[in-house]
């Protein structure tokens, strides 16, 4: 692609027009070969209005990108392996993606306010251990294991919130990195340093049974995603989380209780980590101290899902698609008998491609803004 950025004019630069390289070429979203040049008023090229419509469409396409990318990857693997596009294999992919997907939902909420929570990974580990230890030592507890596990997860989130928000130690990256190690250590202490085999039967059922033909883990992810999407899109508190991600300063000035909302964010994230812990416990039938790696995979899913790490943008469904993309890569490469040593390589490549797509999006947004300014200057 030619250097677009260098040719980008500042908004309000007067009558700049953007045309196809041949001056008449059909407008398309991949505007790579177009060049900027100043035109006299009424010169050739597309009207700013039409351009802005085209660019809006391109933006929408990129916003739906992760789902599109997922479809493409599925198509490629379907061509390469006859086993890929079978119901049982796709079900497998979804089940294998489910724990990362749940964790990614938690990570998404924190990313939306422009922060990170690295401790979510070891929170998952702690939750599986709390489940297994409670089941081993207090078999009479029954269903009460679930609220205990959730409570353990929320307790970690509470510590994060208190340290980051209440004590005003603003560096969430370092605080939650510290918590990642601290919580890992707690898991080792609680488990005696090893796996604790055996989880309550209903957790096994949740992880392995089907309801109305849908595997439990998939159902859990769909329900959790639906709840979070509704919360972020329709509930006032959820909109405030988005608003703070857009501008915490402006949020404070319009009366949004910024610190309370931020406090809640780490709690909400740890809740999803605890739910992920419950699922992982059921899938493994054991409590295992997590190495904390899964959170990096979850954050990768969030980024592949098009969320912006500086906050303000992120979609639940795109994040889930991001998690499934990661699961698909692992599954597809295995089917193709590629050595699993190459899987992290592929994940890394997809991650970097996702960031590239985000840069392209920023570029198109910039052009759209210029078009809008031109419409305003010319029309109104």
């Amino acid at each position: 692609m030619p250097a677009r950025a260098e040719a980008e004019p500042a908004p309000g630069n007067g009558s700049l027009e953007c045309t196809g390289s041949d001056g008449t070429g059909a407008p398309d979203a991949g505007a790579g070969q177009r060049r900027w040049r100043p035109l006299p008023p009424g010169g050739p090229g597309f009207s700013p209005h039409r351009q802005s419509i085209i660019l809006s469409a391109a933006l929408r396409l990129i916003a739906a990108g992760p789902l599109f990318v997922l479809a493409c990857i599925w198509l490629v693997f379907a061509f390469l392996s006859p086993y890929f596009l079978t119901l049982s294999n796709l079900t497998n992919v979804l089940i294998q993606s489910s724990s990362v997907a749940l964790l990614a939902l938690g990570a998404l909420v924190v990313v939306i306010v422009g922060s990170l929570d690295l401790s979510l990974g070891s929170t998952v580990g702690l939750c599986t251990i709390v489940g297994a230890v409670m089941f081993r030592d207090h078999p009479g507890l029954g269903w009460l294991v679930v609220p205990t596990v959730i409570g353990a997860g929320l307790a970690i989130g509470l510590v994060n919130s208190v340290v980051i928000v209440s004590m005003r130690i603003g560096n969430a990256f370092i605080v939650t990195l510290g918590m990642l190690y601290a919580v890992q250590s707690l898991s080792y202490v609680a488990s005696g340093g090893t796996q604790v085999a055996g989880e309550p039967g209903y957790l096994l059922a949740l992880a392995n049974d089907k309801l109305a033909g849908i595997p439990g883990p998939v159902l859990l992810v769909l329900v959790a995603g639906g709840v979070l999407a509704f919360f972020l899109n329709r509930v006032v508190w959820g909109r405030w989380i988005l608003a703070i991600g857009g501008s915490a300063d402006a949020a404070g000035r319009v009366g949004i209780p910024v610190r309370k909302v931020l406090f809640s964010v780490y709690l909400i994230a740890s809740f999803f980590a605890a739910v992920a812990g419950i699922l992982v416990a059921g899938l493994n039938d054991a409590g295992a101290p997590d190495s904390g790696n899964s959170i990096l995979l979850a954050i990768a899913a969030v980024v592949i899902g098009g969320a912006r790490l500086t906050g303000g943008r992120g979609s639940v469904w795109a994040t889930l698609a991001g998690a499934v993309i990661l699961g698909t890569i692992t599954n597809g490469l295995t089917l193709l008998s590629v050595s699993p040593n190459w899987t992290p390589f592929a994940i890394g490549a997809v991650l970097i491609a996702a960031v590239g797509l985000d840069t392209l999006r920023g570029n198109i947004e910039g052009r759209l803004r210029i078009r809008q300014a031109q419409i305003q200057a010319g029309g109104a």
Partner: protein
Amino acid sequence: MSADALLQVDRVTKRFGNHAALDAVSFTVREREVVALLGDNGAGKSTLVKCIAGVTRPDEGRIYLDGEQMHAGPQAVRRAHGVGVVYQDLALFDNLSVAENLFAGSEPCWPRRLKSIGIVKKRAMLEEARSTFQRLEVTIPNLKTPVGLLSGGQRQAIAVAKGIAFAQKIVLLDEPTAALGLRERGNVLRLVSQLPRNGVAVILISHNLEEVIAVADRCVILRQGKLVGEVPATQASHEAMVSLIVGGQPALADAQVRQQPPANGQANPNL
């Protein structure tokens, strides 16, 4: 307090460390009056606006609106009292839609008593936003567009609309035209000059004296946190304004103002 005083600022003091950003500032705004707040950079104009807006709590002094004392607190409360604010840096959310920006912090929700955990009434919000922009004669092509995708002039218009839409008594504008071109500047000034006719008073901060003379009734001038004078906003008092702003001899003062780099780095051709 005089009978027709709408807003009374009574000996308001605000300190940052040892530095008094505002030092016992008192003035009143009458109903339907447009008062310009003038002063050099660092004179305390923005701090005063933030105190009146309830964003900053004054260390001393009181602020009365309609005879009722106002305390620093949530913006929704100010809005309910009929106070609107337009901030210098716009205070917009680039990632939210035009309609959401208009209502951010006081979203219409159902059930209403749940407030922060209620469900946003998106359709009602859109409709109300549409009628608001219509009433203010501001053209925004699509209310669902994220504000970050709009041009500078449109963003400014939205910020002004957000500040004045729900204000029934008084609007505070902190340099609403600083970053604008001529046409957009005219639009904003038109919106401002409509306000008194609708029974709303205005406090306007501006570096642009021509603009102040065009829309304001009276000027209140701050220097180094102190109120140093009040003059009518007429062409005749132009020199007096400049002299009060910089506190020197008029001729020298004028030259200094000309050299003064504007606060936001934008060119300010009219000074």
